[in-house]
């Protein structure tokens, strides 16, 4: 069902309004560009530093997506495993929660010792930060199978593996895809944290380098590019989610 024209217009209008308000506020309150540059100044900076921004954006996008892809693979497998086998869940639970509780910034120096400065620590940080929500959501999805449905399948003589394949996996899919939307934005946080702490490439590095030169508009240009990549990735997975798990959304367009 196509949304009415006005509904589709709203996100664009609000976003545009946000930048206009920002511009006016900076101008009206005479905010120094070293504190908060105006959107127009950021735009000028983006145009000026276009090649560097593009190069570093690719690097960030690359590390983020590789880390994210690893997280999807491992998260899905481990989520299915702990969701299907309570013993595995009980065994791994303390370690997994413990690992997830460690601030990822604290891990980056260790990764640098192991792998050196550059791409690998960023990929790993993106991976570890986005892995957990995917795994938890898949496991939760498996736990939502109705007991009666399980009975129907068991009474037909279905094995645990058959129940997992025919019912468990499909019913976990909405949870899985919902987690992807969140996880991909988390992966950006991971890779950029790593680039900020220890890298010679990527948007995170660009921003650190720019702020060392007090080039605040370029710092904000970096922020804007990150936000834009995040929005695009979120939309991509949101679209896939809607296509694949249409049956879980039903007629309700509020959630999508």
């Amino acid at each position: 069902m196509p949304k009415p024209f006005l509904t589709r217009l709203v996100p664009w209008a609000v976003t545009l309004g946000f930048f206009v308000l920002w511009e006016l506020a900076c101008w009206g309150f005479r905010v120094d560009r070293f504190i908060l540059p105006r959107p127009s100044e950021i735009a000028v900076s983006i145009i000026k530093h276009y090649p560097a921004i593009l190069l570093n954006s690719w690097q960030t996008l690359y590390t983020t997506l590789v880390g994210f892809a690893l997280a999807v693979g491992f998260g899905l497998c481990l989520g299915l495993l702990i969701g299907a086998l309570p013993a595995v869940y009980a065994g791994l639970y303390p370690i997994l929660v413990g690992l997830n509780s460690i601030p990822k910034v604290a891990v980056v120096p260790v990764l640098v010792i192991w792998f050196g400065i550059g791409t690998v620590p960023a990929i790993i940080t993106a991976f570890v930060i986005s892995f957990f929500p995917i795994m938890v959501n898949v496991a939760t999805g498996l736990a939502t199978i109705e007991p009666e449905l399980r009975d129907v399948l068991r009474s037909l003589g279905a094995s645990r593996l058959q129940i997992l394949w025919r019912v468990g996996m499909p019913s976990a899919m909405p949870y899985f895809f919902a987690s992807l939307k969140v996880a991909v934005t988390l992966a950006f946080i991971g890779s950029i944290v790593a680039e900020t702490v220890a890298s010679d490439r990527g948007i995170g590095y660009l921003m650190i380098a720019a702020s060392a030169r007090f080039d605040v508009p370029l710092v904000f240009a970096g922020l804007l590019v990150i936000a834009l990549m995040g929005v695009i990735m979120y939309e991509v997975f949101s679209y896939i989610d809607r296509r694949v798990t249409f049956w879980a959304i039903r007629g309700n367009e509020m959630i999508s």
Partner: protein
Amino acid sequence: MKMQAQSQDSTPFVQLRNASLAYGGEGQQLLAVDDISMSIEQGEFIAIVGPSGCGKSSLLKLVSGLHPALKGEVIVDGKAVTSPISICGMAFQNSTLLPWRTTLDNVLLPLQIVQPFAGNFRRHRREYVEKARHLLASVGLLEFEKKYPWELSGGMQQRASLCRALIHDPRVLLLDEPFGALDAFTREDLWEVLQTLWVEKRPTVVLVTHDLREAAYLADTIYVCSPRPGKIVSRNEMHFPRPRSLETTFEPDFVDTVQLLREKIARH
């Protein structure tokens, strides 16, 4: 009318001998049904009625083999039941259809699991689809075969659920309050649908319900259960001629029988 279930000329198809079932682990077991004995002939339609929480559903778990008996024996088709028997079909109050499958694909699900169908599903797919469509047609759902369950009304979902329970030609059909969540008109429609399906395929049916009119309309024999732990307190044979219709339910004989059942339940 109260009498001990006795096997007549043939050996009964489903037999419970002093069967008990309990939930929970050692020490704090909660007895759901206690010392149940009943014999169900092949092709017989029985109903189990009783107050809520009397372990009616537990009885189905015993027969299907989903839950082992604590004491006593459950025998289906001459074999002691120790694990799930794949010759049964089940339907519940909640239709439990898979929302990502169309109505047709939902009905086909058992054929992808139960042997020998599952082994040759790909090769015989066309034949199985025809079988499923035939079944859907018989409950008036053929035009909805491509729809998803959430696009169907509650009554249609239950019809599809019945089709799914019957597609693999189970010899035992276990129904746990299948029409409990439906409005009165839809429910009465489905009594007729179920009766027709039963006459056509003649599976042995165990229907759990708390609707006494439903039990009297559908069943050959009605067992009345006492409150927890459930015991069989009476066995009642229904001799209304088949096929029964909605008119049957207004005949004085039928009304009296339902009233009698109600008193038996109230007494315990």
